[in-house]
């Protein structure tokens, strides 16, 4: 047979990402240049935010006298070009056998998380690195595009920038002008699209694509006056401990930072990963989000400016910000002196969602003032019921970790992780605290008697805390 092979292109997108328009542009570009081609799609109900797939085939000889027979689905090892508006969807094509050493992959770098990933309490997200690595290994060529930064207009769908990258990749035989003509013929947001197209084209022609910027963690510096204490810590925990100290100084005061540092002492000689985990969990727990802390964060300078940016208005434009707060018995009790608070919390059910549903207008003098007064109660915090309750719980947990280190070291890391149960607000947190209380009762006996069974139980609790934290309240999900 003397004929050439058709060029096969799959486009994967999610509903709303402009995959349909991208596919139409592509088909139009080939048609404009005189290449026979055929496009199809399977949007179905998947257009409502699910994965959508578009498939395009063309024959690489313009104005061909014979008519090619095109196919409506790609073969395995059958793609010349895989376009993905989301990297997980590119990797799905790899899983389906469509991406091989024949395939050039153009993928957006930004993850759009699936419901399954979002539902996990904690970190259920699949990191882009894993996906990129898989694609790099399998495909002939991979170009990763941070469409958010390439696109001239932020917040746009990025499909025109991707279209430019397709042109720039030069896998298909059309010229830059053919692609641009397609945008004009289709007639949707022509000028903005041409601008994005040019940016995408340039990006794909750049000799060595820049690595996508991954979000890096931000560590605060050692607060003044604590340099020596931090320097005295084992090296691997210094950076994180310094960050935690800065955070706690902001949260309370120097004395509280010292309390944190003194609580770390028993773990100075522990294994590396355990130390880090203790610092992270303890630093996080000691800065528990009480009413005072929430008010402090909500009145933080710069917050309103950030929100203005989010809704796209300048610094002088009218702005209304409304907070959704629902203080209940727990929140009121948390501000009371210990004895009163304790009495208030007796017989309080963790299932209760009773409270005062407040819509607090932070952008009014009254609303901001209320939060500011609450934020100003930091001096009072150590006298509150909540403070004493939390410190007791923290001591109890740290004690449990210490005992685990002594009696059953294999359990010490998981025990540290149990602090995850102290996370959250409302019912989720209340149930977590109940669970901790129950677990740490007779802890040393449990450790000594049957560490194997205990390890299984702890793993089970951790697993539930991450994947199914709502279960105890009778919810199905």
């Amino acid at each position, binding site marked *: 047979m003397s004929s050439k092979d058709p060029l096969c292109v799959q486009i994967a997108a999610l509903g709303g990402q402009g995959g349909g328009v991208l596919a139409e542009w592509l088909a139009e570009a080939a048609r404009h240049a005189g290449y026979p081609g055929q496009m199809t799609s399977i949007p179905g109900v998947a257009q409502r935010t699910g994965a959508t797939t578009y498939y395009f085939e063309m024959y690489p000889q313009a104005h061909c006298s014979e008519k090619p027979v095109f196919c409506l689905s790609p073969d395995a090892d059958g793609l010349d070009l895989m376009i993905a508006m989301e990297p997980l969807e590119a990797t799905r094509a790899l899983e389906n056998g469509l991406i091989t050493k024949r395939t050039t992959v153009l993928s957006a770098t930004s993850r759009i998380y699936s419901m399954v990933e979002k539902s*996990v309490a904690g970190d259920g997200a699949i990191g882009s690195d894993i996906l990129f690595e898989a694609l790099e290994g399998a495909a002939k060529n991979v170009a990763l595009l941070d469409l958010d930064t390439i696109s001239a207009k932020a917040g746009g769908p990025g499909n025109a920038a991707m279209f430019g990258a397709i042109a720039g990749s030069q896998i298909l035989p059309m010229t830059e002008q053919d692609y641009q003509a397609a945008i004009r013929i289709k007639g949707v947001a022509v000028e903005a699209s041409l601008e994005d197209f040019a940016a995408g084209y340039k990006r794909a022609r750049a000799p060595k694509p820049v690595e996508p910027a991954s979000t890096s963690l931000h560590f605060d510096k050692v607060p003044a006056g604590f340099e020596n204490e931090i320097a005295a810590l084992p090296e691997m925990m210094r950076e994180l401990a310094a960050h935690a100290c800065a955070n706690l100084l902001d949260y309370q005061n120097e004395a509280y930072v010292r309390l944190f540092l003194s609580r770390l002492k028993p773990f100075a000689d522990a294994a590396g990963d355990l130390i880090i985990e203790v610092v992270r969990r303890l630093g996080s727990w000691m800065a528990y989000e009480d009413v005072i802390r929430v008010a402090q964060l909500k009145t933080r300078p710069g917050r309103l400016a950030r929100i203005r940016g989010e809704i796209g208005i300048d610094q002088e434009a009218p702005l209304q910000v409304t907070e959704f707060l629902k203080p209940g018995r727990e929140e009121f009790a948390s501000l009371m002196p210990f004895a009163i608070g304790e009495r208030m919390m007796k017989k309080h059910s963790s299932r209760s969602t009773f409270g005062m549903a407040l819509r607090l207008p932070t952008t009014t003098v009254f609303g901001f003032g209320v939060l500011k007064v609450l934020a100003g109660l930091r001096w009072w915090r150590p006298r509150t019921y909540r403070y004493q309750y939390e410190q007791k719980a923290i001591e109890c947990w740290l004690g449990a970790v210490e005992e685990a280190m002594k009696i059953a070291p294999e359990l010490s890391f998981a025990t540290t992780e149990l602090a995850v149960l102290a996370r959250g607000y*409302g019912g989720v947190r209340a149930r977590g605290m109940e669970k901790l209380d129950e677990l740490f009762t007779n802890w040393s006996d449990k450790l000594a008697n049957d560490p194997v069974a205990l390890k299984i139980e702890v793993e089970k609790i951790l697993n539930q805390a991450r994947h199914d934290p709502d279960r105890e309240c009778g919810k199905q999900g």
Partner: protein
Amino acid sequence: MSAALKALTRERSFAREAEKLLLGEGDEFHGEAILAVTKALLQAGVSYVGGYPGAPVSHLMDVLADARDTVLEPYGIHFEQSASEAGAAAMLGASINYPLRGAVTWKSIVGTNVASDALSNLASAGVKGGAVVVIGDDYGEGASVIQERTHATALKSSLPLIDPRYDMPTIVDMTEHAFELSETCNLPVLLSLRIRACHMTGSFICKENRPALRKRQNTALSPDFDYTRIVLPPSTYAQEKAKVEERLPAARRYIQSNQLNEVFKGQGGRHGIIMQGGTYGVVMRSLSRLGHGDVFGNSDIPLLVLNVVHPLVPEEITSFLEDKDSVLVVEEGHPAFIEDQIRSIIHQADMSCTVYGKNVIPTTGEYVTPVVRAGIATYLSALADTVIAKKTKERNSAIEKRVSVARDNKPGQPLPPRPPSFCTGCPERPIFSAFKLIMADRGPLHISMDIGCSTFATLPPFNMGNTVLGYGLSLASSGAIAGSLDQPAIAVMGDGAFWHNGLATGAINAQWQGMDAVLIILDNGYASATGQQHLPSTGATPIGEPVQISIEKALRGIGVQWIRHVDSYDIKGTRAAVEEALDVRGKGLRVIMSGNECMLAKKRRGNAIKAVALAEGESVRNARYGVDAEICTGDHSCMRMNGCPSLTLKPATDPLKDGPTAHVDNNCAACNLCGENAHAAQLCPSFYKARGVVNASALQRWRASLNMRMLKMMGAS
């Protein structure tokens, strides 16, 4: 809301597509296949068109609805968006007594099932005018319905079934042939296109459109009474006989004499492939990849392409198989009707030929290229012709090897699925948040679910809705369960489902039986899942006539007393109404109408208005929700209560955080569900709603700056 505004909200405007329907003799049409079929209907001179929207054939109806002035009226075509597929099939009754050509369309298998009563009667009575059903077969990847074959309906009702080769001129030809065939054999004809085929692009050379019969003849028809067309005994016995002895044989003669099925002889040999027309492209691609064909459709292997898959013409089969030892039948779906019939034809003709089919290609699932290529490779590798067998094996294993090497790189963890879900700001979602809270208090409830966007509640994060029995059937399916559970019957249906089947089969029956039931109607104004087609309660017909039929009045009319309206975004109010409905046992049918316009439609219209206002420098309000990342602890309770696509994750920058925090992205529609959930479930204080004004007036800006100055004195910025 005005009808004109509603018209702005349709998912796509079809004005450009509608222009293509007016192309004349010799013009080149380029576009989607479903639109080409619509053009072919006009070329065939249809007098009426109807149908019920559903992917992948909704466009046929959407385009015509937008073309009242350009197509429907000038050509004198009667157009209806039928009440259901049964209604659409009944429309074809116009062709029983009169030489009127007509076509209807729906999604199959579900639409065919709903239509089957009318279809059976129609097929039995027989037609004078060409009656064609354009079937969108929703099978395989992206399908949203049960996986069954329309072929079974064709067999039992003796309906010719066309499954054309996916080449645009062939599809158009076959559509026109469908009318001729129908008139020749007096049977309604099914023309089936798969999802990918409906959306495929291509070109063909047009013919002139033919106006409807009335327009052509310019005289009215006179009423015709013919008892032999009535489906009552003894006519029915005669009709049954006619189907077998006259109509199907006439169909076979037409198929044969017009060579609707195609033979590609290839290089000859004692082997061959028989396939449904719709699988031709996949077969051809498989052959070219295995080295036995090229991209121009030249195949070394003999092929018989069945563009009409029912009825088969035995002579065509035996003549193709005359010199063959074996044949592969490529037939998508189960049961393998064609394969079995071919075996039977071979047996009856006393021939000897081994039939391959479901033994080498999987019985179920879509016949995409990898599946068919592997099956064809298995067949060809086993041939006595060693040249073919060897080449096939080499080519196929090279492909498989490249795939397996590439696949070795796939991530160690399984990739999460990405099913469809409620859109950003969807008004149908909040009620399931309310149900989560109710179930947290009362324990699980059995909820009978319906077809429509609300079916997505069965997926995470809600995981509720215990059964789905069909469109408009949720209430009907709940009656027998409730008594055995300690709860009233609870059914959820959309407004589309209510009008399709829910009023008669569900509400009237429940009211009549005094059923202890709670019906929740999600009233968003459109048939949203299929593209926001209009409904009787929308406010305007599909072609824009302002007519509105009230759901509430319909319910009051049948005597329902207990009806509550709730704002769908008001969780507290919804919850209270649902709990009240659950608790007033013994009061018969209780209905809660949870209403708000489909957010897609609302946003599309809002965005259009906003863009104009911004361009003209008028002041525009921007609103959205946000999350304070510092306050979010990352337990993601909000995700599990909500499920909104724009409520998502953001990697934490604070190393003390335990994983990503919640984040509201730019698509937020400010529907208020995040705030409502934060209150109702007492989630956390991270959420805020921000409202701002772009292009504010001087006075507004002055007041804002005064306010900001005071806040600044208190430390804000």
